[in-house]
């Protein structure tokens, strides 16, 4: 299918200021989208209130508005510029929400502006909890079991379906007030009663708990000819319960069996078709129960996301650029891969290395704030690293973070330094700890149970004081495959310590030769 010739001018909405949860990845996607569309001869109108973006450079778009992003402002711009279409999928949730408002207010229709990339119906299906659940039911995919209750009696009926443990979320409260988890039939009514009381509309959502399940994401693209490709699979090192933006993530997924991965692929293809995202990229999140392998769909973003930026960088496949080209009618087989120049964009990327992304937090700037990580994202940035193995990539990632660490511990910056490692040295330093001290174990276990920015380093301490992989798994629910890799790094550290004397001799000799 060739590109569309009935449209000439395209409006792209950016994501506005950098906030937690919406950072410069949308400058990246907006810039790419704009370049790709101009390359094809379209006129591009850009809107973004953020002056620090490349996308608002005066020579990038044909017309650039540095104005607040609101339906009112966008309508004014549409009146002046009269674009043929609006591409709302490159500017994060801000762009998507504004596009939905413009569509629902009839402004787009009034000015003859077509939504491309994702239609209103598809956006609503993906974003509305109930519609999404119905859609998943139609294609025989599971979502976490749930139901709304307005009384304890109703709740008792719902819990039969949902099962324990269950999460009780009051509707319309700020910041999750009144939410709780019930593990058994006895405490359940009390949690529900409290939730109902907190909710201004006296309603609670009772949802199956997927806390501690393994979390995965797939980046998927579809074209108008209904071709679908999987760009990248991403596995969260931190299990469900920690926001993806606050999780260490790894690409490609490391711990799925081929069968499980194929099931997830098939599900993703069915989902993008059922939701009806006609062109472009989507991000789909899954949770897998480590006990029985049950897979549920958590959510779908019908747009380019933070994970798409990561997937683009991890694979070399430019998702935003391809999404923009698909939106104007190209099909995946018609777009050439810039890197190889011979393969088309319908050729799924293959990775022969490992990519690790680690979040960067800034709790030190907010004294008194709680550093526990949960479902609301708190990190302000991220670093990505590439290595041949997970171990190599993880250590490179940790030293990329600008937190004055130079790898997975063993860099002179550790909170605990244990005596038994010092094979050839006297433990004179008072900061050396006896690894068998009981208070230590408690401290370390507490840090393992509660997701927090330093948890990764506490896994090392846990290994050093002799906790087993199985124990650490119980406290963190981090897949044992990752824990085994971490243990191998620690073993290597001990091997290195053991050859200290020999190495130092070599270095002395070396110094003599060069005269240091």
């Amino acid at each position, binding site marked *: 299918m060739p590109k569309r010739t009935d449209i000439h001018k395209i409006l792209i909405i950016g994501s506005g200021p*950098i906030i937690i949860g919406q950072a410069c990845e949308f400058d990246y996607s907006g*810039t790419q989208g704009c370049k790709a569309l101009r390359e094809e001869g379209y006129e591009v109108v850009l809107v973004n209130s953020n002056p620090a973006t490349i996308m608002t450079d005066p020579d990038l778009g044909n017309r650039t508005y540095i104005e607040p992003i609101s339906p009112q402002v966008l309508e004014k711009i549409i009146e002046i510029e009269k674009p043929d279409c609006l591409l709302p999928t490159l500017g994060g949730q801000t762009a998507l929400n504004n596009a939905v408002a413009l569509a629902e207010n009839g402004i787009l229709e009034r000015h003859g502006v077509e939504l491309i990339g994702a239609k209103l119906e598809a956006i609503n299906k993906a974003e509305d909890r109930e519609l999404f659940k119905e859609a998943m039911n139609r294609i025989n995919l599971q979502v976490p079991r749930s139901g709304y209750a307005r009384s304890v009696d109703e709740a008792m009926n719902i819990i039969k379906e949902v099962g324990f443990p269950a999460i009780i979320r009051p509707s319309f409260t700020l910041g999750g007030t009144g939410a709780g988890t019930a593990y058994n039939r006895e405490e359940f009514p009390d949690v529900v009663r409290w939730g109902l009381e907190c909710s201004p509309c006296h309603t609670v959502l009772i949802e199956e708990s997927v806390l501690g399940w393994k979390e995965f994401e797939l980046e998927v693209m579809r074209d108008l000819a209904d071709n679908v490709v999987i760009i990248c699979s991403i596995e969260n090192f931190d299990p469900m319960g920690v926001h993806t933006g606050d999780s260490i993530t790894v690409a490609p997924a490391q711990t799925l069996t081929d069968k499980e991965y194929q099931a997830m692929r098939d599900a993703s293809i069915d989902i993008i078709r059922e939701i009806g995202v006609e062109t472009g990229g989507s991000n789909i999140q899954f949770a897998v129960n480590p006990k029985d392998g049950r897979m549920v769909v958590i959510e779908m973003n019908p747009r380019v996301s*933070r994970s798409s930026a990561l997937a683009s960088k991890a694979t070399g496949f430019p998702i935003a650029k391809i999404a923009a080209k698909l939106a104007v009618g190209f099909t995946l087989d018609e777009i050439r891969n810039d890197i190889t120049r011979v393969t088309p964009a319908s050729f799924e990327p293959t990775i022969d290395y490992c990519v690790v992304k680690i979040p*960067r937090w800034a709790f030190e700037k907010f004294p008194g704030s709680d550093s526990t990580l949960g479902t609301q994202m708190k990190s302000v940035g991220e670093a990505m690293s590439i290595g041949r193995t997970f171990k190599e990539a993880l250590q490179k990632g940790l030293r990329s973070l600008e937190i004055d660490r*130079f790898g997975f511990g063993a860099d002179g910056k550790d909170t605990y330094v244990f005596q038994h490692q010092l094979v050839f040295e006297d433990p004179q330093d008072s900061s050396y700890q006896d690894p068998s001290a009981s208070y230590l174990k408690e401290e370390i276990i507490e840090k393992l149970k509660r997701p927090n920015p330093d948890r990764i380093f506490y896994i090392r301490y846990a290994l050093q004081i002799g906790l087993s992989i199985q124990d650490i798994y119980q406290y963190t629910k981090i897949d044992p495959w990752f824990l085994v890799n971490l243990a191998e790094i620690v073993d290597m550290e001990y091997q290195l310590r053991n*050859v200290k004397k020999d190495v130092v001799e070599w270095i002395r000799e070396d110094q003599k030769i060069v005269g240091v």
Partner: protein
Amino acid sequence: MNETELKNIILQAKQFGFSDRQLGYLWGVSESDIRRLRKRLAIVPVFKTVDTCAAEFEAFTPYHYSTYETESEVRPSEKGKIVILGGGPNRIGQGIEFDYCCVHAVMALREIGYETIMINSNPETVSTDYDTADRLYFEPLTFEDVMHIIEAEQPKGVIVQFGGQTPLKLAVPLERAGVNILGTSPDSIDLAEDRKRFGALLEELRINQPPNGTATTVAEAKTIANRIGYPVLVRPSYVLGGRAMEIVYDENRLSTYMKRAVQVSPEHPVLIDKYLEDAVEVDVDAVSDMSDVYVGGIMEHIEFAGIHSGDSACVIPPRTLMSETVDTICAQTITLAKALHACGLMNIQYAVTRRDGAEQVYVLEVNPRASRTVPFVSKATGVPLAKIAAKIMAGISLASFGLPPRPTIHHIAVKEAVLPFLKFPGVDILLGPEMRSTGEVMGIDTDFGRAYAKAQAGAGMMLPEPNPPLDKRQVVISVTDRDKPAIVESARWLAEMGFELLATGGTFEFLRQHKIPSKRVFKVKEDRPHIVDIMKNLNTALVINTPLDASSAYDELALRRCALEHHIPYVTTVAAARAAVLGIRSNLKENLQVKAIQDYFST
């Protein structure tokens, strides 16, 4: 242990991702010892390619990462090459602005025929797009990792001044390792950052800075504070970015600060500066090629000095400064750029005090590198400062750009910071000397009030409209004694525009004395319904609250958090209150005009 055994264990450690720094720590030797030993044993990384196809097809876009294997896929070219070091992960104080500068440096250097090599570790950025630079290395920005790339590529030079603190702190080690640092020399950067050297330079140039001193004991701190007079700005010398910085009004607070916040010692001295109360802060971005200087933008801050420049709103061109003051600022900027042999970008922060109709200029800080405000200034004035600076660093003269001495613009641009307080329950939302914003927006228009209102709207705070509906016309005012005189005019305008003023005890009395009608409301601790009860009923259109004193800290925190969580527009300084009132007066809803940035500079 023989050489093969030694080689094997080091190679395996490197394949497990251990850095030289870690190996040095584990073996009790220095990083450079490890480096030397590795080189002797020929343990160096190779570079592989990210090519979408696991090497099944040839790759044409050089996008690389390092690893310890045998075959390198990098084929360095013979062209003139320049390495640009990126900013690493985003964090508060170091965000997208530096990525913008790096990308502009790449574009500019490509334009003049250099091959550009980008090194960065942040996947969210434009700089790490595979087609931004000629070559991309996705690697940590540490000395070890950067040196490997430099050794493989042999570039003509390295640019460290565009990526913020991350690459800047590599300047000295890289230079020591024999790498050519382009632009302002690491020694000049040190001259600007070293308090003693910099103080001497200012004295020589006869440029004012606020009286200051360095204390190594509590007693010394008190002596210095008494000499220069309270209030003083205190901070530990070894922390960058305004952390643990505080404004102290008396000796009691000084003692508490010295005990609580810092462990003062000869190795860790405390810096004490005179805090210039009610001074207007001014930020300047300039470009210099050592013989000429272009003063790219003069930004007047809306909040007074003492609030971190990254958290303060600012406006181009300056609004309230006398033209002589602007001239003085330009002249001092040029003098300082030349004295520091600045080559490339430079940022200077000034404070301007006013007494008896005269304005006095003080230099607060000079940073001979890209600043956070470079993109804002470039967008507001239409002159791409980072691109010009990059070309200058490659040897092109400033004169060849044919720029006027300073920009002339016929519009007003306001920058506003965006803060993440909503994500951190319980944390106070007051601004201070420590930066906490994550991002920024720009409002551009021909009228200050409208530009300010647009910036607020962009930052998510919709200012109310004049003649508000009955159920949305309350304005809550509660300000500290020092701020009361300054709030009178804003309050009067609000009353005239049909708002109902609600004020707490002292503020209520003060407004009554000035014949401005307001209604007294209770503070949280006084009685109910108190101020927070009233705000929760959602009839409030605006909250003006400046910090009172420690005793009402809790009370006020509740008030400010309530405003934040219920999305009620709020301001916490009198200067911002005044700007907000001007914004309301401009009546954005009626007068909303949008204009493409290309049209602002079309003539």
